[in-house]
């Protein structure tokens, strides 16, 4: 199989408007991936499936990942001129910046015909609240059907073009997306005889209030 860089270059030549970034994986597995922009993703997926040299006819795994908003603290060194006329003072200025989070969907593609793989592709939403739509790849690979429904259920990514986008695991009336990192579980910690860590904190809310001595 050609390398991921070659695939990317070929894709860029075929889809000039698309933005395709190589995301490197620093771990020992070194399974790098291609980050696709949402607009062209389905066309690119079609191409990956039907291209004679690749024939990635089998989408093994589709999954979501939640990357919450995080506060980034940046320290910048600023030279402040000394009013007394001496040399400039170097002062560290701290700025906090809110880096917006996003939801990500990752697909692992293999070729059953040519027995190679994986090619990992990923897509990202704009944010985690209101712009969470990604194109569905179910029309390309039917195996994404249940997996995208599961991602919709647990992460809340809306897959545009999915034939039957309903919750897969939780009940229909359920409102939350429980696999997100900021999901708060319902409180049923009434009886915790062996609590410690996070469970202890939750169980403590059920402990009797300390008696107030007059």
């Amino acid at each position: 199989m050609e390398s991921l860089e070659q695939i990317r270059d070929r894709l860029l030549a075929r889809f000039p408007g698309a933005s395709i970034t190589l995301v490197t994986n620093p771990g020992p597995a070194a399974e790098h991936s291609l980050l696709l922009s949402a607009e062209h993703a389905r066309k690119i997926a079609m191409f990956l499936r039907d291209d004679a040299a690749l024939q990635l006819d089998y989408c093994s795994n589709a999954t979501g990942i939640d990357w919450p908003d995080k506060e980034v603290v940046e320290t910048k060194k600023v030279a402040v001129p000394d009013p007394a006329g001496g040399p400039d003072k170097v002062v560290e200025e701290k700025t906090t910046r809110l880096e917006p989070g996003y939801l990500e969907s990752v697909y692992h593609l293999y070729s059953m015909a040519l027995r190679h793989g994986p090619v990992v592709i990923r897509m990202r939403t704009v944010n985690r609240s209101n712009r969470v739509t990604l194109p569905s790849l179910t029309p390309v690979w039917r195996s994404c059907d249940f997996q995208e429904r599961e991602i919709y259920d647990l992460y809340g990514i809306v897959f545009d073009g999915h034939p039957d986008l309903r919750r897969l695991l939780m009940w229909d009336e359920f409102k939350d997306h429980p696999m997100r990192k900021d999901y708060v579980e319902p409180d049923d910690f009434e009886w915790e005889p062996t609590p410690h860590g996070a469970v202890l904190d939750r169980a403590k809310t059920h402990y009797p209030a300390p008696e107030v001595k007059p």
Partner: protein
Amino acid sequence: MIGTGSAPSPFGQLSGPTVRKVKDPFHGDLLEVSMGPQHPSTHGVFRMDVTLDGEVIVKLKPVFGYLHRNHEKIAENTSYLGSMPYTDRLDYLSSMSTNWAYALAVEKLAGLTVPDRAQYLRIILAELTRLVNHVCLVGFLFNDLGTSFTPLLYAFREREKIIDLFEALSGSRMMCNYQRFGGCRVDPTPEWLAAASRLVDNFPSFLDEYESMLTGNEIMLARTQGVGRLDPKHAINAGITGPVLRASGVNYDLRKVDGYGFYPRFDFRIPLGDHGDTYDRYMMRILEMRESVKILQQAFRELPAGPIMDPKAKLRGFRPKPGEAYGRLESPKGELGFYLLSDGSPNPYRYRVRPPSLINLTLLEEMCLGHTVADAVVILGSIDIVLGEVDR
């Protein structure tokens, strides 16, 4: 009275009645039936919303989630080691393979190697697991066909023998918790190996008896041949793997394709079907068991001595470097994968199980359309699902 009848219940209803009449412009009067989640032949708490024209299925929607135990969420809050016993409970009929799949992914993530003896032990245990799984599956399948328990009794008699081996080795009958990152937990004694080898040598004679009881049975042939056809093109696109895919004639077995573990050293063949019907899926299991016996006999012959753990691997305080890995192997049900994303902390940032049981159900509706309800039960049985893995 509570439940299905028309009498109002004092305690309220579920989200919908279980049986309902609907009008359809093409078929006239149709019947919507909810099969499950408590149904004797759905292999657990699986539900199918079936629309029937007479007894023929015109629409079938599987409903999942009745055993959604939040395995992934719990694993993301537990250490890497702590998730190992949970993987036993994913596919509870074949915990050794599931253990291995998880260990494989973590080893890929952390760059650990596995000593030779452990590699052989893993193959021995994974193939024994395949025997357990397939023999039980055949028993359950015949239960669905209406033989009411007899083949299952034979299957469980044989299963108990293998389960006893697992228990003697790992300490638990079903939840083995045996594999570790970079090796195995317990080294088997020579007596254990002798007993296992004896069992494997006797297994073909059991299979012969089992087959002479079941395979030629005319009722079984009439009920399974031509039922639930699955064509290879759709099967590949729908990501169906394992014996179900190979019954449709697609030669794709990760033991050969990926060659994980020491499988390339072994001499075995991949059985393939031509029709992709229920009968082929049944035969695929029988033939795979015969191949597994060959692998096992070879493994017992060649098992080397030596350590069973990678000296680099440590039990506690395991923190892989940031990165991601997707490890997969051929579990008895199909391609079982674990996708792990590490951010350098003791817990995985993202832990995902690629469940073969769930994805093999993608084409259940297509396979069942036009067949009767009784056939749908058989088709579901031949796909071989375990709800612990479907819903996780």
